Protein backbone atom coordinates (compact mmCIF):
# COMPACT_ATOMS: atom_id res chain seq x y z
CA UNK A 1 0.00 0.00 0.00
CA UNK A 2 1.49 3.30 -1.00
CA UNK A 3 1.67 6.25 1.29
CA UNK A 4 2.15 9.88 0.45
CA UNK A 5 3.18 10.98 3.90
CA UNK A 6 5.59 10.09 6.64
CA UNK A 7 9.18 8.99 6.43
CA UNK A 8 10.48 6.92 3.60
CA UNK A 9 13.17 4.29 4.05
CA UNK A 10 16.77 5.19 3.71
CA UNK A 11 18.44 3.58 0.69
CA UNK A 12 20.31 1.21 2.96
CA UNK A 13 17.00 -0.26 4.08
CA UNK A 14 16.30 -1.80 0.70
CA UNK A 15 16.38 -5.42 1.60
CA UNK A 16 17.70 -8.38 -0.28
CA UNK A 17 17.59 -12.04 0.52
CA UNK A 18 21.16 -11.67 1.71
CA UNK A 19 19.79 -9.99 4.83
CA UNK A 20 18.64 -13.30 6.22
CA UNK A 21 22.03 -14.94 6.18
CA UNK A 22 22.08 -18.31 7.87
CA UNK A 23 25.68 -18.05 9.11
CA UNK A 24 25.14 -14.61 10.61
CA UNK A 25 21.95 -15.70 12.32
CA UNK A 26 23.71 -18.73 13.74
CA UNK A 27 26.59 -16.63 15.11
CA UNK A 28 24.15 -14.17 16.68
CA UNK A 29 22.16 -16.91 18.34
CA UNK A 30 25.35 -18.64 19.51
CA UNK A 31 26.30 -15.45 21.32
CA UNK A 32 22.81 -15.12 22.71
CA UNK A 33 22.73 -18.69 24.01
CA UNK A 34 26.06 -18.15 25.73
CA UNK A 35 24.58 -15.16 27.57
CA UNK A 36 21.20 -16.68 28.38
CA UNK A 37 22.70 -19.87 29.79
CA UNK A 38 25.41 -18.17 31.84
CA UNK A 39 25.01 -19.24 35.49
CA UNK A 40 24.73 -15.65 36.70
CA UNK A 41 21.99 -14.91 34.17
CA UNK A 42 20.04 -18.04 35.05
CA UNK A 43 20.40 -17.24 38.75
CA UNK A 44 19.10 -13.71 38.22
CA UNK A 45 16.23 -14.93 36.09
CA UNK A 46 15.22 -17.58 38.60
CA UNK A 47 15.26 -14.94 41.32
CA UNK A 48 12.86 -12.87 39.25
CA UNK A 49 10.66 -15.85 38.61
CA UNK A 50 10.50 -16.78 42.27
CA UNK A 51 9.63 -13.28 43.45
CA UNK A 52 6.01 -12.61 44.44
CA UNK A 53 4.05 -11.55 41.39
CA UNK A 54 3.53 -8.02 42.67
CA UNK A 55 7.31 -7.56 42.93
CA UNK A 56 8.36 -9.45 39.82
CA UNK A 57 8.69 -6.48 37.50
CA UNK A 58 10.62 -4.55 40.10
CA UNK A 59 12.98 -7.48 40.51
CA UNK A 60 13.37 -7.78 36.77
CA UNK A 61 14.16 -4.11 36.25
CA UNK A 62 16.74 -4.26 39.03
CA UNK A 63 18.42 -7.57 38.25
CA UNK A 64 18.13 -7.83 34.49
CA UNK A 65 19.55 -4.58 33.21
CA UNK A 66 22.50 -5.07 30.86
CA UNK A 67 24.78 -3.13 33.19
CA UNK A 68 23.82 -5.18 36.24
CA UNK A 69 24.27 -8.46 34.42
CA UNK A 70 27.63 -7.51 32.96
CA UNK A 71 28.85 -6.66 36.47
CA UNK A 72 27.99 -10.24 37.39
CA UNK A 73 30.11 -11.51 34.53
CA UNK A 74 27.34 -12.41 32.10
CA UNK A 75 28.80 -12.27 28.56
CA UNK A 76 26.03 -10.20 27.02
CA UNK A 77 26.50 -9.26 23.37
CA UNK A 78 27.43 -5.56 23.05
CA UNK A 79 24.04 -4.44 21.76
CA UNK A 80 21.88 -6.73 23.88
CA UNK A 81 18.53 -5.36 25.01
CA UNK A 82 16.44 -6.70 27.87
CA UNK A 83 12.92 -5.41 28.13
CA UNK A 84 9.37 -6.16 29.09
CA UNK A 85 7.45 -7.71 26.20
CA UNK A 86 4.21 -9.32 25.26
CA UNK A 87 3.07 -11.39 22.30
CA UNK A 88 -0.15 -11.41 20.37
CA UNK A 89 -1.33 -14.22 18.16
CA UNK A 90 -2.72 -11.90 15.53
CA UNK A 91 -4.67 -8.78 14.89
CA UNK A 92 -7.91 -8.37 16.84
CA UNK A 93 -11.04 -9.16 14.92
CA UNK A 94 -12.88 -6.20 13.51
CA UNK A 95 -15.80 -4.93 15.52
CA UNK A 96 -18.15 -1.98 15.41
CA UNK A 97 -16.48 1.36 15.88
CA UNK A 98 -16.49 2.50 19.48
CA UNK A 99 -15.03 5.91 20.09
CA UNK A 100 -16.22 6.58 23.61
CA UNK A 101 -14.29 6.00 26.79
CA UNK A 102 -13.87 2.36 27.73
CA UNK A 103 -16.69 1.34 30.09
CA UNK A 104 -14.18 -0.03 32.60
CA UNK A 105 -12.22 3.20 32.69
CA UNK A 106 -8.76 3.78 31.37
CA UNK A 107 -7.65 5.52 28.21
CA UNK A 108 -9.23 5.44 24.81
CA UNK A 109 -6.33 4.55 22.54
CA UNK A 110 -7.75 6.35 19.53
CA UNK A 111 -8.13 9.55 21.48
CA UNK A 112 -4.56 9.27 22.72
CA UNK A 113 -3.28 8.88 19.18
CA UNK A 114 -5.30 11.84 18.01
CA UNK A 115 -3.79 13.95 20.77
CA UNK A 116 -0.33 13.18 19.44
CA UNK A 117 -1.32 13.70 15.83
CA UNK A 118 -4.70 15.37 15.22
CA UNK A 119 -6.54 14.01 12.20
CA UNK A 120 -4.73 10.71 12.37
CA UNK A 121 -7.88 8.64 12.59
CA UNK A 122 -9.15 9.81 9.21
CA UNK A 123 -5.87 9.18 7.47
CA UNK A 124 -5.55 5.74 9.03
CA UNK A 125 -9.08 4.89 7.96
CA UNK A 126 -8.26 5.84 4.40
CA UNK A 127 -4.72 4.62 3.99
CA UNK A 128 -4.55 1.61 6.30
CA UNK A 129 -8.05 0.23 6.88
CA UNK A 130 -6.72 -3.00 8.40
CA UNK A 131 -4.57 -1.12 10.89
CA UNK A 132 -7.51 1.17 11.67
CA UNK A 133 -9.85 -1.75 12.29
CA UNK A 134 -7.32 -3.46 14.54
CA UNK A 135 -6.87 -0.28 16.54
CA UNK A 136 -10.59 0.20 16.97
CA UNK A 137 -11.01 -3.40 18.05
CA UNK A 138 -8.19 -3.22 20.54
CA UNK A 139 -9.35 0.13 21.85
CA UNK A 140 -12.62 -1.47 22.83
CA UNK A 141 -10.92 -4.45 24.44
CA UNK A 142 -11.87 -4.41 28.08
CA UNK A 143 -8.64 -6.12 29.06
CA UNK A 144 -6.26 -3.37 28.05
CA UNK A 145 -6.26 -1.56 31.33
CA UNK A 146 -6.57 -4.59 33.52
CA UNK A 147 -3.77 -5.75 35.78
CA UNK A 148 -1.39 -8.26 34.32
CA UNK A 149 -2.62 -11.67 35.26
CA UNK A 150 0.17 -13.88 34.02
CA UNK A 151 3.25 -11.82 34.43
CA UNK A 152 6.40 -13.82 34.45
CA UNK A 153 5.14 -16.69 32.38
CA UNK A 154 6.99 -15.65 29.26
CA UNK A 155 10.68 -16.42 29.15
CA UNK A 156 11.97 -15.58 25.74
CA UNK A 157 15.35 -15.22 24.19
CA UNK A 158 15.39 -13.69 20.77
CA UNK A 159 17.67 -12.58 18.01
CA UNK A 160 16.72 -9.28 16.48
CA UNK A 161 16.73 -8.54 12.78
CA UNK A 162 16.41 -4.85 12.01
CA UNK A 163 17.85 -4.20 8.59
CA UNK A 164 19.70 -2.71 6.81
CA UNK A 165 22.15 -5.54 7.23
CA UNK A 166 20.05 -7.90 9.18
CA UNK A 167 21.19 -8.72 12.62
CA UNK A 168 21.17 -6.12 15.33
CA UNK A 169 21.38 -7.76 18.68
CA UNK A 170 19.91 -10.22 21.09
CA UNK A 171 16.89 -9.60 23.20
CA UNK A 172 15.31 -11.23 26.20
CA UNK A 173 12.58 -10.63 28.70
CA UNK A 174 14.21 -12.71 31.39
CA UNK A 175 11.16 -14.47 32.69
CA UNK A 176 9.30 -11.22 33.16
CA UNK A 177 7.43 -11.14 29.91
CA UNK A 178 3.70 -10.85 29.76
CA UNK A 179 0.88 -12.97 28.49
CA UNK A 180 -2.65 -11.68 28.74
Amino acid sequence: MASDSGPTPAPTEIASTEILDRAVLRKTTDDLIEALTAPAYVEAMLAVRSAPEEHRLEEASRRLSPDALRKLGVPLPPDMRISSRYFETGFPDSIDVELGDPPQGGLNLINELNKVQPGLLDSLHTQYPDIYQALVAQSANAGLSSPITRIGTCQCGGAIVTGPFGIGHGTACGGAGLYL
Partner: protein
Amino acid sequence: MRQTYDELIAFVTTPAFSAIYAELMSLPREDRPSFIARVLLQPESLRERGVNVPDGILIQTSAFGDRRPTLFVVKKFLPPEFHGAWENVNITFDNFYEDRDVSRAPDSAWRPPLPVALQNAAIAAGIDLNLLPLECGVGNRGFEALPKTP
Protein backbone atom coordinates in the same frame (compact mmCIF):
# COMPACT_ATOMS: atom_id res chain seq x y z
CA MET B 1 17.96 -24.10 22.62
CA ARG B 2 20.51 -24.42 19.83
CA GLN B 3 18.40 -26.97 18.01
CA THR B 4 15.27 -24.85 18.23
CA TYR B 5 17.07 -21.75 17.02
CA ASP B 6 18.37 -23.79 14.08
CA GLU B 7 14.79 -24.74 13.19
CA LEU B 8 13.81 -21.05 13.18
CA ILE B 9 16.85 -20.10 11.12
CA ALA B 10 16.14 -22.84 8.60
CA PHE B 11 12.61 -21.50 8.19
CA VAL B 12 13.37 -17.79 7.87
CA THR B 13 16.14 -18.45 5.35
CA THR B 14 13.97 -20.45 2.97
CA PRO B 15 13.69 -18.68 -0.39
CA ALA B 16 9.94 -18.24 -0.05
CA PHE B 17 10.11 -16.59 3.37
CA SER B 18 13.14 -14.52 2.42
CA ALA B 19 11.26 -13.21 -0.60
CA ILE B 20 8.37 -12.05 1.56
CA TYR B 21 10.76 -10.41 4.00
CA ALA B 22 12.56 -8.64 1.16
CA GLU B 23 9.21 -7.39 -0.14
CA LEU B 24 8.25 -6.19 3.33
CA MET B 25 11.47 -4.29 3.84
CA SER B 26 11.29 -2.72 0.39
CA LEU B 27 8.13 -0.91 1.50
CA PRO B 28 8.17 2.43 3.29
CA ARG B 29 8.41 1.92 7.04
CA GLU B 30 4.89 3.08 7.68
CA ASP B 31 3.40 0.56 5.22
CA ARG B 32 4.95 -2.50 6.83
CA PRO B 33 2.44 -3.24 9.63
CA SER B 34 -0.37 -3.38 7.06
CA PHE B 35 1.61 -5.75 4.86
CA ILE B 36 2.25 -7.98 7.87
CA ALA B 37 -1.47 -8.05 8.67
CA ARG B 38 -2.37 -8.92 5.10
CA VAL B 39 0.40 -11.41 4.32
CA LEU B 40 2.53 -12.67 7.18
CA LEU B 41 -0.31 -13.24 9.63
CA GLN B 42 -2.55 -14.90 7.04
CA PRO B 43 -1.89 -18.64 6.58
CA GLU B 44 -3.65 -18.74 3.22
CA SER B 45 -1.64 -15.82 1.93
CA LEU B 46 1.56 -17.51 3.05
CA ARG B 47 0.60 -20.72 1.30
CA GLU B 48 -0.14 -18.83 -1.90
CA ARG B 49 3.38 -17.44 -1.74
CA GLY B 50 4.93 -20.86 -1.22
CA VAL B 51 5.64 -20.55 2.50
CA ASN B 52 5.03 -23.71 4.50
CA VAL B 53 5.25 -22.92 8.19
CA PRO B 54 6.60 -25.98 10.04
CA ASP B 55 4.60 -27.42 12.91
CA GLY B 56 5.34 -25.59 16.14
CA ILE B 57 6.65 -22.40 14.55
CA LEU B 58 4.52 -19.34 15.21
CA ILE B 59 4.44 -16.01 13.39
CA GLN B 60 3.17 -13.37 15.79
CA THR B 61 3.19 -9.71 16.59
CA SER B 62 4.57 -8.34 19.83
CA ALA B 63 5.52 -5.17 21.63
CA PHE B 64 8.42 -4.26 23.89
CA GLY B 65 8.48 -2.04 26.92
CA ASP B 66 11.44 -0.10 25.57
CA ARG B 67 9.20 1.01 22.67
CA ARG B 68 11.42 -0.21 19.86
CA PRO B 69 9.38 -0.29 16.62
CA THR B 70 9.03 -4.03 16.26
CA LEU B 71 7.20 -5.65 13.34
CA PHE B 72 6.77 -9.38 13.86
CA VAL B 73 8.38 -12.40 15.43
CA VAL B 74 9.01 -16.00 14.39
CA LYS B 75 8.90 -18.07 17.54
CA LYS B 76 8.96 -21.63 18.83
CA PHE B 77 8.39 -22.99 22.30
CA LEU B 78 11.15 -25.08 23.79
CA PRO B 79 10.30 -28.61 24.95
CA PRO B 80 8.53 -28.62 28.35
CA GLU B 81 11.53 -30.04 30.17
CA PHE B 82 13.34 -26.73 29.62
CA HIS B 83 10.55 -24.48 30.83
CA GLY B 84 12.04 -24.13 34.28
CA ALA B 85 14.64 -21.86 32.74
CA TRP B 86 13.35 -20.89 29.30
CA GLU B 87 10.07 -21.12 27.52
CA ASN B 88 10.60 -20.00 23.95
CA VAL B 89 13.19 -18.72 21.53
CA ASN B 90 12.49 -16.41 18.66
CA ILE B 91 13.79 -14.29 15.84
CA THR B 92 12.26 -10.84 15.99
CA PHE B 93 12.05 -8.47 13.03
CA ASP B 94 12.09 -4.75 13.76
CA ASN B 95 11.65 -1.62 11.75
CA PHE B 96 14.88 0.29 11.45
CA TYR B 97 15.70 2.58 14.36
CA GLU B 98 18.73 4.39 15.61
CA ASP B 99 20.26 2.63 18.59
CA ARG B 100 20.35 5.90 20.54
CA ASP B 101 16.60 6.33 20.12
CA VAL B 102 15.72 3.26 22.19
CA SER B 103 16.95 3.45 25.75
CA ARG B 104 18.39 0.52 27.68
CA ALA B 105 17.83 2.26 31.02
CA PRO B 106 15.70 0.13 33.36
CA ASP B 107 12.95 2.72 33.74
CA SER B 108 12.58 2.87 29.96
CA ALA B 109 13.12 -0.80 29.16
CA TRP B 110 10.53 -1.93 31.71
CA ARG B 111 7.64 0.26 30.69
CA PRO B 112 4.32 -1.44 29.95
CA PRO B 113 4.42 -2.50 26.28
CA LEU B 114 1.99 -0.73 23.98
CA PRO B 115 -0.96 -2.69 22.63
CA VAL B 116 0.15 -4.02 19.26
CA ALA B 117 -2.70 -2.28 17.40
CA LEU B 118 -1.71 1.05 18.90
CA GLN B 119 1.95 0.42 18.18
CA ASN B 120 1.16 -0.39 14.55
CA ALA B 121 -1.11 2.61 14.12
CA ALA B 122 1.65 4.84 15.46
CA ILE B 123 4.21 3.26 13.13
CA ALA B 124 1.83 3.72 10.20
CA ALA B 125 1.46 7.38 11.12
CA GLY B 126 5.18 7.93 11.64
CA ILE B 127 4.66 8.76 15.31
CA ASP B 128 7.52 8.27 17.75
CA LEU B 129 6.32 5.49 20.04
CA ASN B 130 7.91 7.25 22.98
CA LEU B 131 5.33 10.02 22.68
CA LEU B 132 2.48 7.76 23.74
CA PRO B 133 1.69 7.91 27.46
CA LEU B 134 2.55 5.08 29.83
CA GLU B 135 -1.13 4.68 30.60
CA CYS B 136 -1.66 3.31 27.10
CA GLY B 137 0.48 0.30 27.95
CA VAL B 138 -0.81 -3.23 28.33
CA GLY B 139 -1.51 -4.01 31.95
CA ASN B 140 -0.07 -0.66 32.97
CA ARG B 141 -1.28 -0.89 36.55
CA GLY B 142 1.08 -3.80 37.09
CA PHE B 143 4.00 -1.48 36.35
CA GLU B 144 3.10 1.31 38.72
CA ALA B 145 5.25 -0.04 41.55
CA LEU B 146 8.43 0.15 39.53
CA PRO B 147 10.99 2.64 40.83
CA LYS B 148 11.53 5.66 38.63
CA THR B 149 14.83 7.36 37.94
CA PRO B 150 14.88 10.69 39.82
